[in-house]
């Protein structure tokens, strides 16, 4: 492992200043992703700036009914938080569907948002990967790509974002609070991640060294009726083969509002605006939902091994919305 220095910042400003001054520094949160990648030689920082002691570990209820989640709140704490469970069940379910109990006890909100792809080639320095080593090629494009993207990929990278939590945050219209040397700013979750395009090594729109300090959830009464469904190859401790986060607001039979987002389909959590549009204002029916999912997937381009994601996505969309509509599928 590459030797590195360890810095425990006094405050947020100190943390940001160190990152600004050190070209090869990284924030260390739970370390469940970063430390693995350091051992594998995929990430080779010179300095680790440990954010765990910064005062970012609380969940606050906001006056407008929303919630502000500190960046170092552990995934397990967030999932168990009574307000989250009551007002944003989709988030609790997404968190609990991820990883294992031990990992969730370590993993933080900020680290979860910025965890790297699980593309197997990314994690193996002996193989070509544009994201890890720009210009080296994308081994997955014509290789083992069963778990990778069907939407919005580029010839340079077909990776998916692995986070379950981020999919839930996508339907909740979460806002990410970010500190950098210029101060604080808000980044809507929808704008946080980039498409891979020609530069898959750039995963987010954040400036280098930016520190995530919190995630804000706006008040969203409809989210009380929300859920997360994850299909996976084994019953626990597996990344999604397909997943969907959904909020449904019915007026009698008519869909007053709906929000859908998918995991495992693209380089970012995939908010299904198009499907939502097909559904909003129409009487609920499973057939309509299936059509809406198909519309969302119209531009999908499956790779050699992952065509199954299309029928899977359609099927879990129907199941989840039927469930939220109180119509259990036979």
């Amino acid at each position, binding site marked *: 492992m590459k030797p590195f220095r360890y810095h425990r910042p006094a405050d947020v400003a100190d943390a940001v200043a160190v990152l600004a001054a050190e070209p090869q520094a990284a924030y260390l949160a739970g370390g469940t992703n970063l430390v693995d990648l350091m051992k594998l030689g995929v990430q080779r920082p010179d300095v680790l700036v440990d954010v765990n002691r910064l005062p970012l570990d609380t969940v606050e209820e906001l006056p407008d009914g929303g919630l502000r989640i500190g960046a170092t709140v552990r995934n397990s704490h967030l999932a168990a938080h009574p307000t989250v469970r009551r007002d944003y069940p989709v988030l609790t379910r997404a968190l609990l569907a991820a990883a294992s109990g031990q990992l969730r006890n370590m993993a933080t909100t900020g680290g979860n948002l910025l965890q790297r792809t699980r593309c197997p080639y990314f994690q193996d320095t002996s193989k070509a990967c544009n994201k890890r080593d720009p210009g080296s090629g994308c081994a997955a494009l014509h290789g083992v790509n069963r778990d990778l993207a069907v939407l919005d990929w580029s010839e340079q990278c077909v990776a998916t974002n692995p986070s379950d939590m981020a999919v839930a945050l996508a339907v909740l219209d979460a806002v990410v609070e970010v500190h950098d040397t210029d101060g604080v700013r808000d980044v809507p979750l929808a704008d946080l991640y980039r498409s891979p395009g020609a530069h898959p090594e750039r995963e987010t729109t954040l400036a280098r060294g930016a520190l995530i300090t919190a995630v804000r959830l706006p008040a969203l009464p409809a989210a009380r009726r929300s859920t997360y469904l994850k299909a996976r190859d*084994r019953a626990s401790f*597996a990344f999604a083969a397909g997943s969907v986060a959904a909020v449904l607001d019915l007026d009698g039979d008519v869909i007053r509002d709906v929000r859908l987002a998918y995991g495992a389909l693209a380089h970012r959590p995939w908010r299904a605006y198009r499907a939502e549009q097909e559904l909003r204002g129409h009487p609920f029916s499973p057939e309509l939902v299936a059509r809406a999912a198909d519309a969302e997937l119209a531009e999908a381009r499956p790779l050699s091994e992952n065509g199954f994601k299309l029928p899977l996505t359609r099927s879990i969309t129907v199941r989840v919305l039927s469930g939220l509509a109180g119509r259990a*599928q036979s």
Partner: protein
Amino acid sequence: MSAGAIGQAHPRLEGREKVTGTARYAMEYPVDGVTYGWVVPAAVVRGRITHIDTTEALASPGVLAVVHHGNAPRLATTPGPNLWLLQDPAVHYRGQYVAVVVATTLEAAREGAQLVRIEYDAGPHTTVLTDDHPGLYKPDHVNPAYPTDTAEGDFDAGYAAAQVRVDATYRTPAYHNNPMEPHATTAQWTDGRLLVHDSNQGATSVRATLAELFDVPRESVRVIAEHVGGGFGSKGYAKPAVVLAALAARHVDRPVKLALTRQQIFGPIGYRTPTIQRVRLAADTDGRLTAISHDSISQTSQILEYTESVAVYTRSMYAAPHRRTTHRVTRLDVPTPFWMRAPGECPGAYALESAMDELAVATGIDPVELRIRNDTEIDPDQGAPFTSRNLVACLREGAQRFGWADRNPTPRSRREGRFLIGSGVAGSAYPSQSVPASARITARPDGGFLVQINATDIGTGARTALWLVAADALQVPPERIEIRIGDSELPAAPVAGASMGTSSWSWAVIRAGEALRGKLRDGVPPDAEVSAEVDTSAELNAQARKPKFTYGAQFVEVRVDTTTGEIRLNRMLGVFTAGRIVNPTTARSQLIGGMTMGVSMALHEGGLFDERYGDWVNHDLGTYHITACADVESIEAYWLDERDDELNAAGVKGIGEVGIVGAAAAVANAVYHATGVRIRDLPIQLDKLIGTSALA
């Protein structure tokens, strides 16, 4: 022998040390002046190293040496090409360990390994097994020494004439042994003597191999393997970690600790070969088999022939007048496959027990009944009666406990909400063998006894089992006995493998106990220590060779989620006959462990191969899935009393492997019953079901 301790449930003797972390594993022995080794894997598949630049690595803080073919101590060639490491520039497969970086800390060694620059002259490679691979040939024998092909009667004629026929081809991917403790060694040379603490399944043979490799007398080598965190066959004899650690320690003239990472063990330490298996069964309309054939295709490496004995299971399991089995293998530019829990029987039973299910469907006969109808008291292979064969009893008992009678045989006949429910059955068998062992027991003046035997406890509970056996052999309460195993200084004993450890070791312990009792006055402790040491070679060699097998029947109920294709086990149940069960606590663990590993094979495991790189791309347990607890909601193992006096001194059969044999077929058969779709290439995962008629 008095019956007393044997058969009583007893927790592991070393359980407390293990759960409190005080049990020492190979890397955990404190050693003064120790250094750390880190392997460098080859980045090409086939070729030669043309240049190794160690400048940067050697300049890295803490790095002491880079050991490679240009500077490594010389090794003897006789232990075989897989262990002739760092001796020449040839690369035979990707990931081959081509250098070891030694440093003062583990992290420095790891960093040093990143900084070794190697240039290769690489050639084209062939790494993918196909059923028409031009390199397929007929090996002289299959692992370990079975005939390659067998034939009785006239298969082609028998098959052609039959009323019902099944012809199916099954495929299994590469499986990777993943013991919790990866291969690891602490090696130290002192005055030409080598001491290693090593994670292996048999220190006696590891010592012999090391002595040969380093050209020193056996007495100069000591191998300690007191606690071993699993092996599943991959540590069956000396493997690269111990050789490299000893080599590096000699090179730097300091003790070296070397552990392989999870990533590094996918391939070079051995794995189960992928297989392509064609099974043809013919029967009359009553389901009586008239012809059976099983043709297996598998791979080996360019440097060593290892042919998995895939079709051997079929030679003895069910009877038919016309029979044929064949094995063909091809050399690829891949690491050498090796033993993995029930080598041969495991993949072979998956195919045969699946084909039996297909025959049950084709004949309309219940699959339990079909197996009962084709039971045989005579081993079709050896032509001699089995010493005991209670397969039918296992099938009946299992069917009754499982509630098989309530099953509607029609596929897709059970739907509960969004789930399709199905159940499946398979038979299981594994040879029950013993090999010579020696043991020494000492009576102490204080009334205690010391049992010494170089058995290995790889997590199975072997230490505790032998302690119980010794108690009965000495006719004393077990608490009066101290037992020492896992050290090559102890009386020589065979490997913990092939389900023959307990049968072989207990034999020696019982004979030593008898010999010692002959030297003692009944029940009276001696004035000074008295010992008896025995070796069972003569007695074993005099024993007539007869067909001996452990049997089982496994039952599985799955539910298949029609909205996702996810498959989960509602329940799994196995009934076995294995002679006497020494310790029910650990026997149950062995059986359900094997069964779970079979579930893993059916639903989860598989090396994902990238031909361009000649390598698997899943190199860790995040991407190489093994079954998690949550996948198996209920699992039960039972055994029936079985007394067989023709086995060995303790009357035991092996239980280490039988649980995995047939388990994958039982799961696959249940998936078929649930969905009406037969998937013949493992693992059966949601992508093979979603969007198909299976879930419609």
